[in-house]
Each structure stands twice: as C-alpha cells, then as structure tokens.
C-alpha cells in the first residue's frame, strides 16, 4: 500500500535511449496499466520499477522514498512474470513460501500466510504438487500467490495472461482485478492487449516508442486521445484517419473519426462519399469497409439491424463535427 512516483525516468542501453522520460504519480491502491505495441518499452519501464534494470536518468520513489539504488527485495514490491518463473523443483507451497523463508519469517507465520493465499486463490488441493503438474491457469495462480504472500506495497505484472487461452484470460483478468481491489495494493500491469488495459485500469499509460503518449482513465483516453498514435492504438476496429485536405481543412493535418461515429447516408449527402468494399456482419453489429477519395480506408460500425449496403455501391458518409478529432502533421491533437 503505497504511492509510486516516476520522475522523468529514462533508460539507455549503451547509446540507444529506449525510454525517453516518463512522469507519473500513482496514488495508493491505484491500478495502472501500461499498454503499447511490442518493443515500445513497457517491460523495461516495469523492470526499472522492480529494480531488475538500472535507471539511467530520473527518479523512482515508492512511498516518497527514492529507490533507484535499492535491490528488488528492499523495494517492497512483488512481481508476476510472463512465464510465471515458478521454481520447478519446489512444490506449490514451497514456491509461495520461498521469499518469506529468505526473509527469516517464523514458520508458523509463513504457513498461515501460504494457507491464506491458497484459500484466496483456490490452490488448496494443489499445495503439494510441482509446477509442471499444474495447468497454465493454476500456475498463473501460484505466481499470484507468491506475490500475495509477501504483502508488498506494489504489485508488478508483466503480461501475466499472455500464455493463457482466450477464455481463461477473461476469467483470470477478473480474478486479478478483484484480488487487487480486495487487497488494496497499488498495481502496475503491462500488457499489449487493449481490452485487458481498458477493463483493468484505473488509469492507463499508453506507450509509444519509449514515450508515454497519454496517461488517463481508459474511457477518457478512448474518448479524448491526445495523439494520432493513441487514437489509432486504442479502440477496435481502429480510428479512421482521413487526410484533412479532402474535407477542405488545412493540408497536412488529419482528421480521426471512430468507426461507430460514422453513418452510411444516401449518395450525395454527408461529408464525403465512399465505395463499399465489403461488409462483416457480426450479428449485433456490422463492420463496413470502404475507400474514399484519396484512397483512405474507412470502417463504419453500425447496428446489426441497420440495412447493409451492397459491395461496389457508392454511399455517403456522415458524422457529427463534435466527434471529429483533428491531428497536426506531427500527430498531436489540435
């Protein structure tokens, strides 16, 4: 239970800088998700907080205390790894107890904590098993258990669900969220899956090539992206980008409009016309893919009950001016 502050945090490997200065104040008990495409520096950022990577510049404070020089064990954090990193030769019980044993905690207390975590994670039947005798989801829980028993101030997760199948992922996502709420522990969670990010986060950090493009609550980031990258990355299907010139706005700038904000209109009406390429009826909704003048691709997301235009048809596209997002040539929101 602690606050975490990152202050112009930078990381370089040799001469190449991979994190270009990240600032954030995380309050006690907050769930922060770091999201971004592969290679943008999410793991590096998390590992710096964990103390597994050195800090090149800037400062990390946990509960107001500078921890840059501290070993991971002295930072009062616990980490869950992507491949779980369970000790293969130890039983589930020993895996969870290992950190406490090193901390020279009395046996009775260790047992009590392990039992408590096992109950919370429904691991009681498996305590004597080795990790390889467990399913992926159970291993994941053991990794969580190992983090919980330490009662850390901060949980760090590096893509903990990426090795699970889709269904289990949804279930574990809920469990992680509930657990974090119940324990009230500050959490930093890395993922490249925007659904995970949207559902878990109190606030999310959208990373792009070592820069935190935007930090904010998921719905706020979705509704009000600060950069072209964020608008394109968050949301599925992604935001449509149209060269503003086509619509009579200044050249070089772009207009972003979310698929659900575009509607099909009769030809000649609406802001522009498009050629229907193909439609994907998904039941509840239909995705219609079009091209418009200048070759830009546009996707329209409409209710499943609305009539679907046929392929090759020319249609008008309309949207409200309020829903438009304008970006300058460098991708900044205007």
């Amino acid at each position, binding site marked *: 239970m602690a606050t975490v502050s990152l202050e112009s945090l930078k990381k370089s490997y040799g001469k190449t800088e991979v994190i270009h200065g990240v600032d954030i104040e995380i309050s006690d008990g907050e769930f922060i998700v770091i999201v971004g495409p592969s290679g943008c520096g999410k793991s590096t950022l998390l590992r710096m907080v*964990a103390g*597994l990577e050195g800090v090149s510049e800037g400062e990390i404070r946990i509960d107001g205390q500078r921890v840059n020089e501290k*070993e*991971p*064990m002295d930072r009062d*954090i*616990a*980490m869950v*790894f*992507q*491949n779980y*990193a*369970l*000790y*293969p*030769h130890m039983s589930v019980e020993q895996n969870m107890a*290992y*950190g406490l044993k*090193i*901390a020279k905690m009395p046996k009775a207390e260790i047992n009590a904590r392990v039992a408590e975590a096992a109950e919370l994670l429904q691991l009681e039947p498996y305590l004597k098993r*080795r990790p*390889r005798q467990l399913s992926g989801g159970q291993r994941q829980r053991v990794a969580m258990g*190992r983090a919980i028993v330490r009662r850390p101030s901060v949980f760090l997760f590096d893509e903990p669900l990426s090795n699970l199948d889709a269904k289990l992922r949804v279930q574990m996502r809920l469990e992680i969220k509930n657990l974090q709420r119940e324990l009230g522990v500050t959490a930093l969670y890395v993922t490249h899956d925007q659904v995970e990010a949207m559902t878990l986060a109190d606030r999310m950090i959208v990373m792009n090539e070592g820069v935190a493009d935007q930090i904010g609550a998921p719905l706020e980031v979705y509704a009000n992206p600060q950069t072209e990258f964020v608008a394109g990355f968050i949301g599925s299907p992604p935001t449509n980008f149209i060269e503003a010139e086509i619509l009579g706005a200044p050249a070089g700038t772009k207009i972003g409009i979310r698929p659900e904000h575009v509607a099909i209109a009769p030809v000649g009406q609406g802001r522009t016309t498009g050629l229907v390429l193909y439609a994907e009826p998904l039941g509840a909704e239909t995705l219609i893919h079009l091209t418009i003048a200048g070759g830009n691709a546009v996707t329209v997301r409409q209710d499943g009950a609305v009539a679907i235009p046929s392929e090759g048809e020319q249609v008008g596209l309309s949207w409200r001016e309020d829903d438009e997002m304008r970006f300058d040539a460098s991708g900044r929101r205007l």
Partner: protein
Amino acid sequence: MAHDAHTGMVERRGAGLWLTHLGLIIGVAFIFFPIWLAFVASTVTQPEIVRPPMPLWPGDQFYENYSKALTSGINAPVARMLLNSAIMAFGISLGKIAISLLSAFAIVYFRFPGRHVFFWLIFLTLMLPVEVRIVPTYEVAANFGMLNSYSGLIFPLIASATATFLFRQFFMTVPDELAEAARVDGARPMRFFVDILLPMSRTNIAALFVILFIYGWNQYLWPLLITTDPSMNTIVMGIKQMFPSGDDTADWPVIMATSILAMIPPVVVVIGMQKLFIRGLVDSEK
C-alpha cells in the same frame, strides 16, 4: 495380426522374438566370457591355471585367493589400493563438480571484466589433457611436495574444462526470469545458486559424477608418475605392477582376484547412480 505397437518400435512375436533374444544372449556371452574367465582364474590354484586345458568352472580357492589379495597382495595389499583409488576417484569427481559448478555460475550469471577471457582460458584447457601437460604438471606437483600424497593424485586432475562447459550450457538454458524471480524474492546470488540452480542441476550432476568417477578410477599414467611408495598405489596401476619382471612366476589367481575387485566399485557406482538417473529422467523438471 494385431498391430498394437503404439510405442513406435517394431514389436516382434513368436520366432522373431526368440531370435532377437538369442542374438542378444550370444552378444552378452561374448562380452562377458573374458570376465568369467578372470573370475574362474581367481578361484583356482596357480598350477591349475598353468596346466592346460584352462578351467571353465570356479574352483574352491575363492576365499584363499581373495583374502590373500586384499590383505597382502603382491606389492601392497589390494584393500589399501582400493582405498587409494576410491579416495582419488571421489576427490577428482567431487572436486571437479564443485569447481565447475562454481565457475560456470560465475561465467553465466556475472558480468565481470575479463569474463570472456576467462571462459576461453578454461576452454583452452580442454585441448590440454593430462598426457600433454604431464611434464610441467609433474614439476609443479613435485615442487609443492605432493609426490606420494592424495593431494598430488587429486588436484592436478581436477582442473579441466569439460564439466565447466557442460554446466555453462545447462545454466544458459535456465530462463532468466527464474533468476529474476529469485532476486525479487530476496535471494542473494549464492542463495540462488544453492536453492535453485543446484537442485535443478542434480540430474546433470549425477550423470557427470558417474563419468568422472570412472575417469578418476581408471587413471593410470598420472598415479604411476606421482606415486612411488607402494602404499600410495592405486588399483589400476597396481595391477600392472603385479606382473612379474624377469623370471619370477606370476601369481595369476591373486592378480585375477585383484582385477575382479578393481571392477566392482565402478560397477556399483554406475548401478547405484542409474536409479538416480532414471528418477531424474522420469521426474524431468523444466
């Protein structure tokens, strides 16, 4: 015909099965026959061996020959030589395993200046077996006063790279995340080594122990050089020294008894460790 060979191996039935076994039995008998002859020779009297035809069945001198070999031998009692060999073989295998585990740990997990240089230096010794560096090694051992001593038998043979190399390869397959998890759990490097790395390497250690024990047990040239006192002789070189020089008659029953005795410890180690091997294989972690 029922084809239920689900193991991917060809399953033979009827005559085929018996023929296969017959082939195997002949093979085993062929390999085993000289050992059997040695055993027979160790249980009869000297005149019985020299007089043709050679006996094919054990005689009644088992106890006499073996107790003579064990207690007095020819130059030194065999019991003494067995002990020397055992100390040497254990010393070499345990020493090598300990040193190579530690050096592999250092090379894989620590970034220190000259890491690569050290690795290549160790690697270089792979190309220099005992026989190649025997003269300088003898010189060094002699200067340190290690002639006719266990340390002289053991230490010069401990330094070698094979095992270091093997453990290095194994450690590199251990995921980095495991070391990081241990670090987050608060394990200092040596703690990680003892609690995580060692138990994970135990099948490798067992395999290496068997190989190194036999390597140590079978050393011939080095003990021959470094020991002159019969009470420091090892069994393998001891057998050779039992052969008579000149016109003396060889005491073949005792020599054969010694040979049989010399074979037992390696066999015991192989069979004993085999269980650990197989348990390690079935139990395979990772």
